[in-house]
């Protein structure tokens, strides 16, 4: 009996039971997240699903929330900011409809998670964060995790990032009650801009802005999450 116990301890120490190691635990959770939260809600874009599966979301949340990183909800990241619900990140990424040759601008880096997901899909991601502490932490995190095609700038998102404009897509995660004209100007013709609208822990709708010549059109889109509260059928 004693020998058996010793053997189990040795096996545990050498990692014989891989399911108990932290990294794999998160991988399993991530796969579950894709299946139960994202695909189940109708996200089908392969690029988006692949990117979401590849990015270790738990490394973009504060340590105390790592175990809940793959939960079906937003999480606090400090400074009054949140990391969006995985489904919302996937939905915004899919809506942006960008590909490997595209360049994307993100306003409101936050933890850097959305930029990391986009970086797996597009050629280059430029991201601007106004809160210095958040921006510097995201910059360091993205560098450590080798997201080399992401550039972080600490600055006022109102002006976008003119040097690298025009952009194929823009995501404005730090929305205000207005859409800055410089961002519209920096959006390519036929480009798309996504703005999540809602209180800190809830995105009630997504504003899709499309530019076509001088004309700008918007579309208010409803995340699936809110449908059950209003009516049973799909909108």
């Amino acid at each position, binding site marked *: 009996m004693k020998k058996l116990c010793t053997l189990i301890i040795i096996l545990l120490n050498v990692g014989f039971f891989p399911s108990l190691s932290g990294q794999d635990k998160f991988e399993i959770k991530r796969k579950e997240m894709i299946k139960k939260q994202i695909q189940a809600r109708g996200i089908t874009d392969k690029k988006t699903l692949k990117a979401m599966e590849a990015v270790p979301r738990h490394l973009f949340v504060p340590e105390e*929330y790592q175990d809940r990183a793959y939960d079906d*909800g937003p999480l*606090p990241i400090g400074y009054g900011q949140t990391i969006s619900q995985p489904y919302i990140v996937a939905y915004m990424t899919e809506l942006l409809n960008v590909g490997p040759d595209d360049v994307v601008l993100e306003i409101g880096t936050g933890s850097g998670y959305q930029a990391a997901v986009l970086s797996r899909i597009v050629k280059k991601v430029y991201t601007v964060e106004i809160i210095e502490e958040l921006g510097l932490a995201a910059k360091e995190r993205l560098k450590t995790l080798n997201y080399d095609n992401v550039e972080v700038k600490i600055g006022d998102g109102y002006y976008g990032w003119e040097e690298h404009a025009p952009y194929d897509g823009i995501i404005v995660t730090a929305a205000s*009650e207005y859409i*800055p*004209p410089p961002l519209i100007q920096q959006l390519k013709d036929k480009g798309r801009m996504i703005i999540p609208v*809602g209180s*800190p822990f809830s995105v009630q709708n997504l504003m899709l802005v499309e530019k076509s010549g001088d004309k700008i059109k918007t579309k208010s*889109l409803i995340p699936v999450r809110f449908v059950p509260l209003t009516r049973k059928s799909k*909108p």
Partner: protein
Amino acid sequence: MESDNTTSLVRINAAIGLISAAIIAFQLILMQILSYIQWYHFAYMIISIALLGFGAAGTFLTIFQKKLEKNYYTLFPLLLIVTAILIPVVVGIANSDAVRFDSLLIFQDSRHIGRLILSYFIFFLPFLTGALAIGLSFSKFADQIGKIYFSNLIGSGIGGIIALFIMQWIIPEQQSFAVAVLAFLGGIVSLPKNKKTFLHILTPLSTLILAILFFYPPRLIPSEYKDISKTMLLPDAKVEYEKSTPHGFVQIVSSPVLRYAPGVSLAYQDSFPVRKVVFNNGNWMGCLLPSPLEQNKTNILDYTPQALPYHINNIKNAMIINAGTGENVLLAVSHQVARITANETNPEIFKILCQSFEGFYGVQPYETLPRTLLTPDTSRYDLIELPIIGSFFGNSGLNAVEPRYELTLEALQEMWNKLSREGMISLSCWMDYPVRNAYRLLSTIGLLLDKNNINHPPQHVVAIRSWCAITFLVKKSPFKRDEINKVHLFCENRMFDPLVLPGNQEIDRDKYNMLQDTAFFTHVDQLLSPNKKTLIQQYPYRIHPTTDNRPFFFQFVRFKQIPQLLTSIREKNFPFLDIGYVLIILTFIQIVFIAAIFILLPLSFSPWKSKNKKWVFIYFSGLGLAYMFLEMVFIQQFTFYFGEPTYAASATLSILLFTSGLGSYYSGKLQNSNKIRRALPLIIAAILILYAFILSPIFSATIGIEFPFKIMIATVLLGVLGFFLGMPFPLGINYLSGKNTDDIPWAWALNGYFSVISTVLATIISVEAGYLLLLLIAAFIYALVSIANVWIKG
């Protein structure tokens, strides 16, 4: 003759007055502090639980009555001094890094639930010790209860007024200290001549502690999710000005990146101006506007849907309701409106408004509520404009139970009556999803037009939609063809879409701003059709028109939806829709649960042997329940009458408490018979039924008279009632003092618990059924209290 180890009744009475004043003032100040660092509904939740300290004090007394009464003269000053120290200390502890909780994280992080519970307990303590001192005195001097209760009520009334002064003149961090001084003075006044050694030490020690707390007050840190916290994170953000007022803590913040362009059209391509922003209790209020003379050629506000009325008609005379810092006034000025009448209720914001338009003779600001301004006004307006409703980010229903009398059917009717022949009412709201604000506005507009016998409502309504907001125009006469053409032009130039246009022509409603859920358009049409009732009844949210009886514009949750919303909270998938009302329901459940435990607890220690259990229970719980129902009803009713919420609440409470105090004092002169205890609640019930019929007509007839006359009318109406309201409680206690003194703490506990239950229940009833029913329920409870006297045995 006073012995050395006792204190005279006069000094006890003075101390009771002081501690009662301190407790009421602390309650009001705590509400303000918590509204600043959290949100109003969380403040409400915490205070309600803390107030259970009154009931808990009664429970404690029931168990330890004899022992405590024996040491009364030592315990009483000790409890007062301890309360004095606890008041600022609990504010400090609750705001420390280890304890401070964040309202929005409660649903995300279980640690914050623990912190919330800890906060409950911490804030509960000073209420417990203060109430223990009062309850102990009730029990000790039951034969003199009329005088003791008189001091308690008068002290409470004065406490409300003192709180207003403290909130006006003392910085928020030091306000709890100022309240503590009242309790401390009570302790000093009630010290026995022959002080015990520990009291010798305690008095200077507590003076020292209070002095330290005065010079090193606790820091008040608002939730990181509040507007002010986020703004202060911006580069070079600084607070330029701050002022505490009874209406909230006003701050003006500047930052080179703080821009102002709420909901501006995507067609606007100029730069957005940097502005200083005004916050009240940490929430965005508006911004400091440029002088109208310094306005740019392109007025940014002209690119919002609210500018529509100025583009379709020549507006000469406009009324701007709840002007805030004056955005809509500036819009009117920029369109050369000759006469602009505006109102704002918050005095500090009103000052800003006045400063912004100083020297503009056409602009006439008034510091009052809109209804008080509207009713006596005989002018005719080309435009009456209300501020935009809701919030760009959604307000999560955090102002669900804030009455909005300017948005009721009766208010819109008054506005309609003041319109010139071509006049319009302009109502705007931020787009929300699920759609609630727009539907409620439209259902109220629909009913308004029905009431005014408008045969074709769609002829009188125009609505346009931007990427984030909607503006409705309701016109007294039908819209003309050229006006409709101007609406089209306005929309085209600004990339807005027409939503409702008179006439039968096909309109492109989503040329620039598309909606995934196109049911919105069908619903809008239905709300202007004779078939609107079906949608109002079947829509998952409450969108029925609001009335003066139920003026809660932002309460959309249907009662049957509560279990569904609670499930969402449990599954941490809570979308923060209408959270305010859910929190009130949760508060009610918590209070009933905690009260039930504390009410049952003493029974396990000392089984209740009273002969008159039923009577004690119904009499004292009924009095607690009904009195607070009435406070709630009258605060709301007189807010509407006085036109100013904070002072109205203060005046109402003070008059009620003062006159109740007089009634209590007078009750000592009455012969305490079963007959009189039966008659008094019946008199009160009769007055209440009378008030249910006469209050509204009296208010309507006299709303326009001078303020001092209004105070006189309020004093008569509330005073007569208050005088009678003050009698039943002391008479009941006095009766027990002659029969079964053991029941006194128990009666006090019941009264305390039911008073707290009552405040939350009153809110729920007024939301669900209206104030009138609440008043009638209170009358019914007093009738029940009267009937309960038949159960008195012996």
